[in-house]
Protein backbone atom coordinates (compact mmCIF):
# COMPACT_ATOMS: atom_id res chain seq x y z
CA UNK A 1 0.00 0.00 0.00
CA UNK A 2 1.36 3.41 -1.01
CA UNK A 3 1.42 6.05 1.71
CA UNK A 4 -0.32 9.29 0.61
CA UNK A 5 2.39 11.83 -0.37
CA UNK A 6 1.23 14.38 2.20
CA UNK A 7 1.48 11.78 4.99
CA UNK A 8 4.86 10.63 3.73
CA UNK A 9 6.13 14.22 3.79
CA UNK A 10 4.71 14.69 7.29
CA UNK A 11 6.41 11.55 8.57
CA UNK A 12 9.72 12.40 6.90
CA UNK A 13 9.64 15.80 8.59
CA UNK A 14 8.87 14.22 11.97
CA UNK A 15 11.81 11.85 11.62
CA UNK A 16 14.04 14.63 10.32
CA UNK A 17 13.34 16.91 13.28
CA UNK A 18 13.47 14.13 15.88
CA UNK A 19 16.84 12.97 14.55
CA UNK A 20 19.09 15.72 16.05
CA UNK A 21 17.63 15.14 19.50
CA UNK A 22 17.98 11.39 19.38
CA UNK A 23 21.45 11.55 17.89
CA UNK A 24 22.38 14.36 20.27
CA UNK A 25 21.44 12.19 23.24
CA UNK A 26 23.84 9.49 22.08
CA UNK A 27 26.60 11.69 20.77
CA UNK A 28 27.21 13.80 23.87
CA UNK A 29 27.06 11.28 26.68
CA UNK A 30 28.51 13.75 29.18
CA UNK A 31 24.98 15.10 29.78
CA UNK A 32 23.93 11.77 31.30
CA UNK A 33 25.79 12.31 34.57
CA UNK A 34 24.30 15.69 35.54
CA UNK A 35 20.92 14.69 34.13
CA UNK A 36 20.65 11.45 36.09
CA UNK A 37 22.78 11.89 39.19
CA UNK A 38 21.99 15.49 40.15
CA UNK A 39 18.19 15.03 40.29
CA UNK A 40 18.81 12.28 42.84
CA UNK A 41 20.27 14.88 45.20
CA UNK A 42 17.05 16.88 45.00
CA UNK A 43 14.98 13.78 45.63
CA UNK A 44 17.13 12.80 48.59
CA UNK A 45 16.06 15.93 50.48
CA UNK A 46 12.38 14.97 50.20
CA UNK A 47 13.11 11.33 51.04
CA UNK A 48 14.89 12.29 54.26
CA UNK A 49 12.17 14.74 55.23
CA UNK A 50 9.56 11.98 54.84
CA UNK A 51 11.72 9.55 56.78
CA UNK A 52 12.20 12.02 59.64
CA UNK A 53 8.44 12.54 59.67
CA UNK A 54 7.97 8.76 59.72
CA UNK A 55 5.72 9.01 56.67
CA UNK A 56 4.48 5.71 55.14
CA UNK A 57 7.22 4.08 52.99
CA UNK A 58 5.27 4.55 49.77
CA UNK A 59 5.97 8.29 50.06
CA UNK A 60 9.57 7.58 49.10
CA UNK A 61 8.21 5.87 45.99
CA UNK A 62 6.00 8.91 45.32
CA UNK A 63 9.09 11.13 45.41
CA UNK A 64 11.17 8.91 43.14
CA UNK A 65 8.35 8.61 40.63
CA UNK A 66 7.68 12.36 40.77
CA UNK A 67 11.38 13.09 40.41
CA UNK A 68 11.54 10.92 37.32
CA UNK A 69 8.56 12.68 35.76
CA UNK A 70 10.15 16.11 36.26
CA UNK A 71 12.41 15.16 33.33
CA UNK A 72 9.40 15.39 31.03
CA UNK A 73 8.16 18.65 32.49
CA UNK A 74 11.60 20.26 32.13
CA UNK A 75 11.78 18.97 28.58
CA UNK A 76 8.40 20.49 27.81
CA UNK A 77 9.42 23.86 29.16
CA UNK A 78 12.95 24.18 27.86
CA UNK A 79 12.97 22.04 24.75
CA UNK A 80 9.42 22.53 23.53
CA UNK A 81 7.80 25.72 24.81
CA UNK A 82 10.79 28.02 24.46
CA UNK A 83 12.44 26.05 21.68
CA UNK A 84 11.13 28.22 18.87
CA UNK A 85 12.87 31.17 20.48
CA UNK A 86 16.22 29.37 20.20
CA UNK A 87 15.34 28.23 16.69
CA UNK A 88 14.64 31.82 15.74
CA UNK A 89 18.04 32.90 17.04
CA UNK A 90 19.78 30.39 14.77
CA UNK A 91 17.52 31.12 11.78
CA UNK A 92 16.16 27.57 11.88
CA UNK A 93 12.62 28.75 12.58
CA UNK A 94 12.24 30.57 9.27
CA UNK A 95 13.50 27.49 7.45
CA UNK A 96 11.00 25.28 9.28
CA UNK A 97 8.14 27.64 8.57
CA UNK A 98 8.93 28.13 4.88
CA UNK A 99 9.22 24.38 4.28
CA UNK A 100 6.20 22.88 2.52
CA UNK A 101 5.25 20.77 5.51
CA UNK A 102 2.92 21.37 8.41
CA UNK A 103 4.77 22.96 11.33
CA UNK A 104 2.94 20.36 13.42
CA UNK A 105 5.33 17.78 11.97
CA UNK A 106 8.28 19.85 13.18
CA UNK A 107 6.72 20.14 16.64
CA UNK A 108 5.93 16.46 16.74
CA UNK A 109 9.48 15.59 15.73
CA UNK A 110 10.77 17.92 18.43
CA UNK A 111 8.48 16.22 20.94
CA UNK A 112 9.43 12.68 19.98
CA UNK A 113 13.12 13.54 20.04
CA UNK A 114 12.73 15.19 23.45
CA UNK A 115 10.71 12.26 24.72
CA UNK A 116 13.60 9.97 23.89
CA UNK A 117 16.24 11.92 25.83
CA UNK A 118 13.84 12.62 28.72
CA UNK A 119 13.01 8.94 29.02
CA UNK A 120 16.69 8.15 29.44
CA UNK A 121 16.87 10.67 32.27
CA UNK A 122 13.61 9.50 33.83
CA UNK A 123 14.70 5.87 33.61
CA UNK A 124 18.03 6.67 35.24
CA UNK A 125 16.28 8.51 38.10
CA UNK A 126 13.87 5.59 38.67
CA UNK A 127 16.70 3.07 38.63
CA UNK A 128 19.11 4.99 40.85
CA UNK A 129 16.39 6.32 43.16
CA UNK A 130 14.85 2.88 43.64
CA UNK A 131 18.21 1.30 44.39
CA UNK A 132 19.45 4.04 46.71
CA UNK A 133 16.25 4.50 48.69
CA UNK A 134 14.99 0.91 48.56
CA UNK A 135 11.69 1.59 46.82
CA UNK A 136 9.38 -1.41 46.53
CA UNK A 137 6.83 -1.37 43.74
CA UNK A 138 3.54 -3.27 43.98
CA UNK A 139 2.16 -2.87 40.50
CA UNK A 140 -1.50 -3.82 40.48
CA UNK A 141 -2.04 -3.49 36.73
CA UNK A 142 1.00 -3.11 34.51
CA UNK A 143 -1.19 -2.60 31.45
CA UNK A 144 -3.01 0.31 33.05
CA UNK A 145 0.26 1.81 34.33
CA UNK A 146 1.67 1.74 30.82
CA UNK A 147 -1.55 3.14 29.38
CA UNK A 148 -1.60 6.01 31.91
CA UNK A 149 2.10 6.69 31.29
CA UNK A 150 1.54 6.74 27.53
CA UNK A 151 -1.53 8.97 27.73
CA UNK A 152 0.19 11.32 30.18
CA UNK A 153 3.07 11.80 27.80
CA UNK A 154 0.88 12.24 24.71
CA UNK A 155 -1.24 14.82 26.53
CA UNK A 156 1.84 16.48 28.04
CA UNK A 157 3.66 16.74 24.72
CA UNK A 158 0.43 17.98 23.16
CA UNK A 159 0.51 20.69 25.81
CA UNK A 160 4.18 21.32 24.96
CA UNK A 161 3.24 21.79 21.32
CA UNK A 162 0.53 24.22 22.40
CA UNK A 163 2.99 26.21 24.51
CA UNK A 164 5.53 26.23 21.68
CA UNK A 165 2.85 27.63 19.38
CA UNK A 166 1.78 30.25 21.89
CA UNK A 167 5.40 31.28 22.42
CA UNK A 168 5.96 31.68 18.67
CA UNK A 169 5.53 35.43 18.93
CA UNK A 170 7.81 35.66 21.93
CA UNK A 171 11.35 36.85 21.99
CA UNK A 172 13.47 36.60 25.08
CA UNK A 173 10.36 36.62 27.28
CA UNK A 174 9.80 32.97 26.29
CA UNK A 175 12.75 32.11 28.49
CA UNK A 176 11.23 34.01 31.41
CA UNK A 177 7.83 32.43 30.88
CA UNK A 178 9.33 28.96 30.99
CA UNK A 179 11.19 29.89 34.13
CA UNK A 180 7.98 31.19 35.69
CA UNK A 181 6.17 27.94 34.93
CA UNK A 182 8.82 25.56 36.20
CA UNK A 183 8.64 25.74 40.00
CA UNK A 184 4.87 26.40 40.48
CA UNK A 185 4.06 23.24 38.55
CA UNK A 186 6.35 21.21 40.80
CA UNK A 187 4.07 22.31 43.63
CA UNK A 188 0.64 22.22 42.02
CA UNK A 189 1.12 18.97 40.15
CA UNK A 190 2.30 17.27 43.33
CA UNK A 191 5.63 16.07 42.01
CA UNK A 192 6.85 15.23 45.53
CA UNK A 193 3.61 14.61 47.44
CA UNK A 194 0.08 13.36 46.74
CA UNK A 195 -1.77 16.12 44.93
CA UNK A 196 -4.90 15.37 46.93
CA UNK A 197 -3.35 17.13 49.92
CA UNK A 198 -3.79 20.46 48.08
CA UNK A 199 -7.55 20.08 48.38
CA UNK A 200 -10.03 19.05 45.72
CA UNK A 201 -10.39 22.31 43.82
CA UNK A 202 -6.67 23.09 43.72
CA UNK A 203 -5.97 19.53 42.54
CA UNK A 204 -8.75 19.78 39.97
CA UNK A 205 -7.32 23.05 38.63
CA UNK A 206 -3.83 21.55 38.55
CA UNK A 207 -5.19 18.65 36.48
CA UNK A 208 -4.90 20.84 33.40
CA UNK A 209 -1.25 19.78 33.54
CA UNK A 210 -1.48 16.16 32.34
CA UNK A 211 1.31 15.08 34.67
CA UNK A 212 -0.87 15.86 37.69
CA UNK A 213 -3.36 13.15 36.82
CA UNK A 214 -0.77 10.82 35.30
CA UNK A 215 1.40 10.89 38.38
CA UNK A 216 -1.55 10.44 40.73
CA UNK A 217 -2.85 7.46 38.77
CA UNK A 218 0.56 5.82 38.46
CA UNK A 219 1.19 6.25 42.19
CA UNK A 220 -2.12 4.59 43.00
CA UNK A 221 -1.31 1.73 40.63
CA UNK A 222 2.28 1.24 41.77
CA UNK A 223 1.99 1.97 45.52
CA UNK A 224 -1.47 0.79 46.55
CA UNK A 225 -0.70 1.03 50.31
CA UNK A 226 -3.16 3.76 51.22
CA UNK A 227 -6.10 3.98 48.80
CA UNK A 228 -7.28 7.27 50.36
CA UNK A 229 -4.20 9.11 49.00
CA UNK A 230 -5.46 9.11 45.41
CA UNK A 231 -7.18 12.18 43.99
CA UNK A 232 -9.53 10.42 41.54
CA UNK A 233 -9.74 6.76 40.59
CA UNK A 234 -6.99 5.66 38.11
CA UNK A 235 -9.62 4.77 35.50
CA UNK A 236 -11.22 8.19 35.77
CA UNK A 237 -7.83 9.86 35.53
CA UNK A 238 -7.05 7.68 32.54
CA UNK A 239 -10.31 8.80 30.90
CA UNK A 240 -9.57 12.48 31.50
CA UNK A 241 -6.09 12.05 30.06
CA UNK A 242 -7.60 10.36 27.04
CA UNK A 243 -9.75 13.44 26.60
CA UNK A 244 -6.87 15.86 27.10
CA UNK A 245 -4.75 14.25 24.36
CA UNK A 246 -6.85 15.35 21.36
CA UNK A 247 -7.79 18.62 23.06
CA UNK A 248 -4.16 19.71 23.41
CA UNK A 249 -3.21 18.46 19.95
CA UNK A 250 -6.15 20.28 18.40
CA UNK A 251 -5.48 23.47 20.36
CA UNK A 252 -1.82 23.39 19.40
CA UNK A 253 -2.75 23.07 15.73
CA UNK A 254 -5.15 26.00 15.93
CA UNK A 255 -2.72 28.09 17.97
CA UNK A 256 0.15 27.37 15.60
CA UNK A 257 -1.89 28.52 12.62
CA UNK A 258 -3.01 31.69 14.36
CA UNK A 259 0.41 32.47 15.73
CA UNK A 260 2.12 31.92 12.39
CA UNK A 261 -0.41 34.30 10.85
CA UNK A 262 0.24 36.89 13.57
CA UNK A 263 4.00 36.41 13.27
CA UNK A 264 3.86 37.01 9.51
CA UNK A 265 2.01 40.25 10.17
CA UNK A 266 4.41 41.39 12.88
CA UNK A 267 7.52 40.04 11.19
CA UNK A 268 8.66 38.00 14.17
CA UNK A 269 9.39 34.73 12.37
CA UNK A 270 12.81 35.80 11.39
CA UNK A 271 13.71 38.86 13.39
CA UNK A 272 16.43 38.19 15.87
CA UNK A 273 17.74 39.94 18.96
CA UNK A 274 14.28 40.91 20.13
Amino acid sequence: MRIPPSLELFLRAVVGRAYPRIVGANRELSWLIPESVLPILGLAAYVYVYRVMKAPPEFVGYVVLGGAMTAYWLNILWSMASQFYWEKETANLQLFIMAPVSPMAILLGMGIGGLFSSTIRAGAVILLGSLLFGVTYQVTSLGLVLLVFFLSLVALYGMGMLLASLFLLSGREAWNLSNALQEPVYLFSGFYFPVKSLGFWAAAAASIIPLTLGLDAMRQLMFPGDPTMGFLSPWMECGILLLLCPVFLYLSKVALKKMEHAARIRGTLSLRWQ
Partner: protein
Amino acid sequence: MPEAILTEDLVREFHLKGGRTIRALDGVNLQVDPGELFGLLGPNGAGKTTLIKILVTLLYPTSGRAFVDGLDVTRDVLPIRQRINMVSGGEYSGYGILTVKETLWMFSQFYGVPYKEAFKRIEELLEVVGLKSEANMRVSKLSTGMRQKMNFCRGFVTDPKILFLDEPTLGLDVEAARDIRAYIKTWMKEHPGRTILLTTHYMAEADELCDRVAIIDHGEILACDTPQALKKKVSGGTLLEISLSGLYDLSWLKGNSGIKGLTYSSSIEKSRTTLKLVLESEEVVPGVIKELNQREFSILGIQSVEPTLEDVFLTLVGRGLSDENSTLS
Protein backbone atom coordinates in the same frame (compact mmCIF):
# COMPACT_ATOMS: atom_id res chain seq x y z
CA MET B 1 3.81 30.92 -18.44
CA PRO B 2 3.48 33.13 -15.37
CA GLU B 3 6.27 35.40 -14.19
CA ALA B 4 8.60 33.72 -11.73
CA ILE B 5 8.23 36.75 -9.47
CA LEU B 6 5.88 39.67 -9.77
CA THR B 7 5.26 42.46 -7.31
CA GLU B 8 2.78 45.29 -7.63
CA ASP B 9 3.08 48.41 -5.49
CA LEU B 10 4.44 46.32 -2.67
CA VAL B 11 4.65 48.10 0.66
CA ARG B 12 5.87 46.73 3.97
CA GLU B 13 5.92 48.71 7.17
CA PHE B 14 7.24 47.70 10.56
CA HIS B 15 5.70 49.23 13.63
CA LEU B 16 8.26 49.71 16.35
CA LYS B 17 7.84 50.26 20.05
CA GLY B 18 7.13 53.89 20.81
CA GLY B 19 4.81 54.28 17.84
CA ARG B 20 7.57 54.68 15.25
CA THR B 21 6.96 53.15 11.84
CA ILE B 22 9.62 52.08 9.36
CA ARG B 23 8.66 51.71 5.71
CA ALA B 24 11.00 48.97 4.53
CA LEU B 25 9.40 48.65 1.10
CA ASP B 26 7.80 51.61 -0.57
CA GLY B 27 5.77 50.63 -3.62
CA VAL B 28 8.03 48.02 -5.17
CA ASN B 29 7.16 46.91 -8.71
CA LEU B 30 9.25 44.07 -10.02
CA GLN B 31 8.97 41.41 -12.65
CA VAL B 32 11.32 38.45 -12.92
CA ASP B 33 10.89 36.02 -15.77
CA PRO B 34 11.30 32.24 -15.52
CA GLY B 35 14.89 31.20 -16.17
CA GLU B 36 16.34 34.54 -15.14
CA LEU B 37 19.14 35.12 -12.69
CA PHE B 38 17.94 38.38 -11.29
CA GLY B 39 19.97 40.58 -8.98
CA LEU B 40 18.65 42.92 -6.36
CA LEU B 41 21.29 45.41 -5.37
CA GLY B 42 21.28 47.81 -2.54
CA PRO B 43 23.03 48.80 0.66
CA ASN B 44 22.22 47.33 4.05
CA GLY B 45 18.73 48.36 5.11
CA ALA B 46 17.59 49.03 1.54
CA GLY B 47 14.73 46.52 1.79
CA LYS B 48 16.25 43.55 -0.04
CA THR B 49 15.77 41.03 2.74
CA THR B 50 12.28 42.30 3.52
CA LEU B 51 11.29 41.76 -0.09
CA ILE B 52 12.67 38.23 -0.02
CA LYS B 53 10.90 37.45 3.26
CA ILE B 54 7.61 38.45 1.67
CA LEU B 55 8.28 36.35 -1.42
CA VAL B 56 9.18 33.27 0.62
CA THR B 57 5.96 33.66 2.67
CA LEU B 58 7.59 34.63 5.96
CA LEU B 59 6.08 38.11 5.98
CA TYR B 60 2.83 39.64 4.83
CA PRO B 61 2.98 42.79 2.77
CA THR B 62 1.32 45.81 4.36
CA SER B 63 -0.23 46.60 0.99
CA GLY B 64 0.24 45.74 -2.65
CA ARG B 65 0.55 42.27 -4.11
CA ALA B 66 3.28 39.75 -4.72
CA PHE B 67 3.26 36.56 -6.78
CA VAL B 68 5.71 33.69 -7.01
CA ASP B 69 5.30 31.45 -10.03
CA GLY B 70 1.90 33.07 -10.52
CA LEU B 71 0.80 32.26 -6.96
CA ASP B 72 -0.26 34.86 -4.43
CA VAL B 73 2.11 35.03 -1.43
CA THR B 74 -0.72 35.76 0.98
CA ARG B 75 -3.14 33.08 -0.20
CA ASP B 76 -1.22 30.27 -1.92
CA VAL B 77 1.30 29.66 0.81
CA LEU B 78 1.77 25.89 0.55
CA PRO B 79 2.12 25.69 -3.26
CA ILE B 80 4.67 28.48 -3.14
CA ARG B 81 6.65 26.74 -0.40
CA GLN B 82 6.76 23.59 -2.54
CA ARG B 83 8.49 25.53 -5.31
CA ILE B 84 11.06 27.59 -3.45
CA ASN B 85 14.02 27.63 -1.13
CA MET B 86 16.15 30.35 0.39
CA VAL B 87 19.72 30.75 1.53
CA SER B 88 20.74 33.71 3.64
CA GLY B 89 24.33 34.78 4.04
CA GLY B 90 25.77 34.50 7.53
CA GLU B 91 22.97 32.31 8.86
CA TYR B 92 23.71 29.70 11.51
CA SER B 93 20.98 27.22 10.75
CA GLY B 94 21.23 23.56 11.64
CA TYR B 95 22.50 21.93 14.79
CA GLY B 96 26.11 21.78 15.85
CA ILE B 97 25.75 18.20 17.03
CA LEU B 98 24.94 16.92 13.53
CA THR B 99 27.41 16.36 10.73
CA VAL B 100 27.27 18.32 7.50
CA LYS B 101 25.69 15.40 5.68
CA GLU B 102 23.12 14.80 8.42
CA THR B 103 22.19 18.50 8.49
CA LEU B 104 21.56 18.60 4.77
CA TRP B 105 19.61 15.35 4.97
CA MET B 106 17.47 16.74 7.81
CA PHE B 107 16.49 19.82 5.84
CA SER B 108 15.80 17.71 2.74
CA GLN B 109 13.29 15.70 4.75
CA PHE B 110 11.17 18.80 5.33
CA TYR B 111 10.71 18.84 1.56
CA GLY B 112 10.05 15.11 1.30
CA VAL B 113 13.15 14.26 -0.71
CA PRO B 114 13.53 10.44 -0.68
CA TYR B 115 16.56 9.17 1.26
CA LYS B 116 18.55 7.85 -1.70
CA GLU B 117 17.92 10.91 -3.81
CA ALA B 118 18.75 13.21 -0.89
CA PHE B 119 22.11 11.56 -0.23
CA LYS B 120 22.94 11.50 -3.94
CA ARG B 121 22.30 15.22 -4.22
CA ILE B 122 24.19 15.92 -1.00
CA GLU B 123 27.28 14.05 -2.25
CA GLU B 124 27.21 15.98 -5.54
CA LEU B 125 26.74 19.35 -3.89
CA LEU B 126 29.45 18.82 -1.31
CA GLU B 127 31.81 17.84 -4.08
CA VAL B 128 31.00 20.96 -6.06
CA VAL B 129 31.52 23.39 -3.19
CA GLY B 130 34.61 21.59 -1.95
CA LEU B 131 33.15 20.28 1.29
CA LYS B 132 33.34 16.57 0.53
CA SER B 133 36.11 15.89 3.03
CA GLU B 134 34.04 17.65 5.72
CA ALA B 135 30.87 15.67 5.00
CA ASN B 136 31.12 13.75 8.25
CA MET B 137 32.42 16.62 10.32
CA ARG B 138 30.16 18.08 12.98
CA VAL B 139 28.67 21.43 12.08
CA SER B 140 30.00 22.90 15.32
CA LYS B 141 33.55 22.27 14.06
CA LEU B 142 33.09 24.07 10.74
CA SER B 143 34.65 27.43 9.99
CA THR B 144 32.33 30.30 9.05
CA GLY B 145 33.08 29.83 5.36
CA MET B 146 32.44 26.08 5.49
CA ARG B 147 29.18 26.65 7.31
CA GLN B 148 28.12 29.16 4.70
CA LYS B 149 28.92 26.65 1.97
CA MET B 150 26.84 24.05 3.77
CA ASN B 151 23.91 26.42 3.94
CA PHE B 152 24.36 27.16 0.29
CA CYS B 153 24.05 23.42 -0.42
CA ARG B 154 20.91 23.33 1.72
CA GLY B 155 19.22 25.69 -0.70
CA PHE B 156 19.95 23.49 -3.70
CA VAL B 157 19.38 20.08 -2.14
CA THR B 158 15.62 20.43 -2.49
CA ASP B 159 15.97 21.24 -6.20
CA PRO B 160 13.76 24.35 -6.06
CA LYS B 161 12.09 25.91 -9.05
CA ILE B 162 12.76 29.38 -7.69
CA LEU B 163 15.68 30.02 -5.37
CA PHE B 164 16.23 33.08 -3.23
CA LEU B 165 19.85 33.79 -2.40
CA ASP B 166 20.13 36.57 0.14
CA GLU B 167 23.76 37.72 0.23
CA PRO B 168 25.05 34.16 -0.33
CA THR B 169 28.72 35.14 -0.32
CA LEU B 170 28.55 37.40 2.72
CA GLY B 171 31.63 36.95 4.87
CA LEU B 172 33.25 34.38 2.59
CA ASP B 173 36.85 34.53 1.51
CA VAL B 174 37.59 35.30 -2.12
CA GLU B 175 38.10 31.68 -3.14
CA ALA B 176 34.95 30.38 -1.46
CA ALA B 177 32.89 33.21 -2.95
CA ARG B 178 34.29 32.39 -6.38
CA ASP B 179 33.35 28.70 -5.96
CA ILE B 180 29.82 29.66 -5.03
CA ARG B 181 29.43 32.04 -7.93
CA ALA B 182 30.74 29.38 -10.30
CA TYR B 183 28.19 26.88 -9.00
CA ILE B 184 25.33 29.35 -9.38
CA LYS B 185 26.27 29.85 -13.04
CA THR B 186 26.57 26.11 -13.64
CA TRP B 187 23.26 25.36 -11.93
CA MET B 188 21.44 27.92 -14.02
CA LYS B 189 22.97 26.51 -17.19
CA GLU B 190 22.09 22.92 -16.27
CA HIS B 191 18.58 23.76 -15.08
CA PRO B 192 16.94 25.94 -17.71
CA GLY B 193 13.65 27.35 -16.53
CA ARG B 194 14.80 27.69 -12.92
CA THR B 195 14.96 31.17 -11.49
CA ILE B 196 17.27 32.76 -8.95
CA LEU B 197 16.69 36.02 -7.16
CA LEU B 198 20.02 37.09 -5.77
CA THR B 199 20.47 39.96 -3.37
CA THR B 200 23.90 41.33 -2.82
CA HIS B 201 25.70 44.50 -2.06
CA TYR B 202 28.73 43.28 -4.00
CA MET B 203 28.29 45.02 -7.33
CA ALA B 204 30.92 42.95 -9.09
CA GLU B 205 29.08 39.80 -8.08
CA ALA B 206 25.86 41.06 -9.60
CA ASP B 207 27.69 42.22 -12.70
CA GLU B 208 29.25 38.78 -13.16
CA LEU B 209 26.16 36.69 -12.49
CA CYS B 210 22.94 38.48 -13.26
CA ASP B 211 20.90 38.68 -16.43
CA ARG B 212 19.15 41.74 -15.05
CA VAL B 213 19.52 43.78 -11.91
CA ALA B 214 17.32 46.12 -9.94
CA ILE B 215 18.82 48.75 -7.70
CA ILE B 216 16.93 49.33 -4.50
CA ASP B 217 17.41 51.97 -1.85
CA HIS B 218 15.17 53.03 1.03
CA GLY B 219 12.59 50.50 -0.12
CA GLU B 220 12.28 51.88 -3.65
CA ILE B 221 13.42 50.39 -6.93
CA LEU B 222 15.54 53.07 -8.57
CA ALA B 223 16.44 51.27 -11.77
CA CYS B 224 16.00 47.87 -13.36
CA ASP B 225 17.76 46.61 -16.47
CA THR B 226 20.64 44.47 -17.69
CA PRO B 227 24.02 45.38 -16.17
CA GLN B 228 25.23 46.59 -19.57
CA ALA B 229 22.21 48.82 -20.10
CA LEU B 230 22.50 50.29 -16.62
CA LYS B 231 26.17 51.08 -17.12
CA LYS B 232 25.39 52.64 -20.47
CA LYS B 233 22.96 55.00 -18.78
CA VAL B 234 25.76 56.27 -16.55
CA SER B 235 28.22 56.79 -19.36
CA GLY B 236 26.35 59.98 -20.22
CA GLY B 237 28.19 61.69 -17.38
CA THR B 238 31.87 61.69 -16.46
CA LEU B 239 33.41 59.32 -13.97
CA LEU B 240 36.60 60.49 -12.40
CA GLU B 241 38.91 58.83 -9.91
CA ILE B 242 41.32 61.08 -8.07
CA SER B 243 44.08 59.81 -5.78
CA LEU B 244 45.18 62.11 -3.00
CA SER B 245 48.17 61.75 -0.72
CA GLY B 246 47.00 61.60 2.91
CA LEU B 247 43.79 60.74 4.72
CA TYR B 248 40.93 63.20 4.34
CA ASP B 249 37.28 63.83 5.02
CA LEU B 250 36.00 65.01 1.66
CA SER B 251 32.37 65.47 2.56
CA TRP B 252 32.72 69.21 1.97
CA LEU B 253 32.73 68.51 -1.77
CA LYS B 254 29.15 67.39 -1.71
CA GLY B 255 27.63 70.83 -2.25
CA ASN B 256 29.67 71.67 -5.33
CA SER B 257 27.70 72.25 -8.47
CA GLY B 258 28.20 69.74 -11.24
CA ILE B 259 28.91 66.85 -8.87
CA LYS B 260 26.15 64.29 -9.15
CA GLY B 261 27.62 61.88 -6.63
CA LEU B 262 30.78 61.10 -4.80
CA THR B 263 32.36 58.42 -2.72
CA TYR B 264 35.77 58.18 -1.18
CA SER B 265 37.79 55.69 0.75
CA SER B 266 41.03 56.01 2.66
CA SER B 267 43.85 53.54 2.96
CA ILE B 268 45.76 53.96 6.21
CA GLU B 269 48.51 51.62 4.98
CA LYS B 270 49.15 53.63 1.83
CA SER B 271 48.23 56.95 3.43
CA ARG B 272 46.08 57.67 0.44
CA THR B 273 42.50 58.75 -0.18
CA THR B 274 40.74 57.70 -3.36
CA LEU B 275 37.91 59.95 -4.45
CA LYS B 276 35.39 58.85 -7.03
CA LEU B 277 33.18 61.48 -8.60
CA VAL B 278 30.23 61.32 -10.93
CA LEU B 279 30.19 64.61 -12.75
CA GLU B 280 27.54 66.14 -14.95
CA SER B 281 30.05 66.78 -17.70
CA GLU B 282 33.77 67.05 -18.41
CA GLU B 283 33.53 70.81 -18.03
CA VAL B 284 33.24 70.39 -14.29
CA VAL B 285 36.66 68.67 -14.03
CA PRO B 286 38.90 71.80 -14.04
CA GLY B 287 36.82 73.39 -11.32
CA VAL B 288 37.16 70.36 -9.06
CA ILE B 289 40.93 70.14 -9.62
CA LYS B 290 41.28 73.85 -8.96
CA GLU B 291 39.40 73.60 -5.70
CA LEU B 292 41.52 70.66 -4.54
CA ASN B 293 44.69 72.55 -5.39
CA GLN B 294 43.47 75.68 -3.61
CA ARG B 295 42.98 73.62 -0.48
CA GLU B 296 46.52 72.29 -0.90
CA PHE B 297 45.65 68.65 -1.45
CA SER B 298 48.45 66.67 -3.01
CA ILE B 299 46.98 65.05 -6.12
CA LEU B 300 48.75 61.81 -7.01
CA GLY B 301 46.72 60.93 -10.06
CA ILE B 302 43.54 61.57 -11.99
CA GLN B 303 41.89 59.14 -14.33
CA SER B 304 38.65 58.76 -16.17
CA VAL B 305 37.13 55.33 -15.41
CA GLU B 306 34.73 52.96 -17.14
CA PRO B 307 31.40 52.78 -15.35
CA THR B 308 30.64 49.81 -13.10
CA LEU B 309 27.41 48.93 -11.33
CA GLU B 310 28.89 50.67 -8.31
CA ASP B 311 28.92 53.85 -10.40
CA VAL B 312 25.35 53.24 -11.47
CA PHE B 313 24.42 53.14 -7.82
CA LEU B 314 26.52 56.21 -7.11
CA THR B 315 24.82 58.10 -9.89
CA LEU B 316 21.33 57.05 -8.88
CA VAL B 317 21.70 57.48 -5.15
CA GLY B 318 24.47 60.01 -4.87
CA ARG B 319 26.52 57.90 -2.46
CA GLY B 320 28.48 54.69 -2.60
CA LEU B 321 27.28 51.30 -1.48
CA SER B 322 29.99 50.33 0.89
CA ASP B 323 31.46 53.63 1.95
CA GLU B 324 29.76 54.87 5.09
CA ASN B 325 31.48 58.23 4.65
CA SER B 326 30.21 58.71 1.15
CA THR B 327 27.97 61.68 0.75
CA LEU B 328 24.93 62.81 -1.12
CA SER B 329 25.45 65.70 -3.50
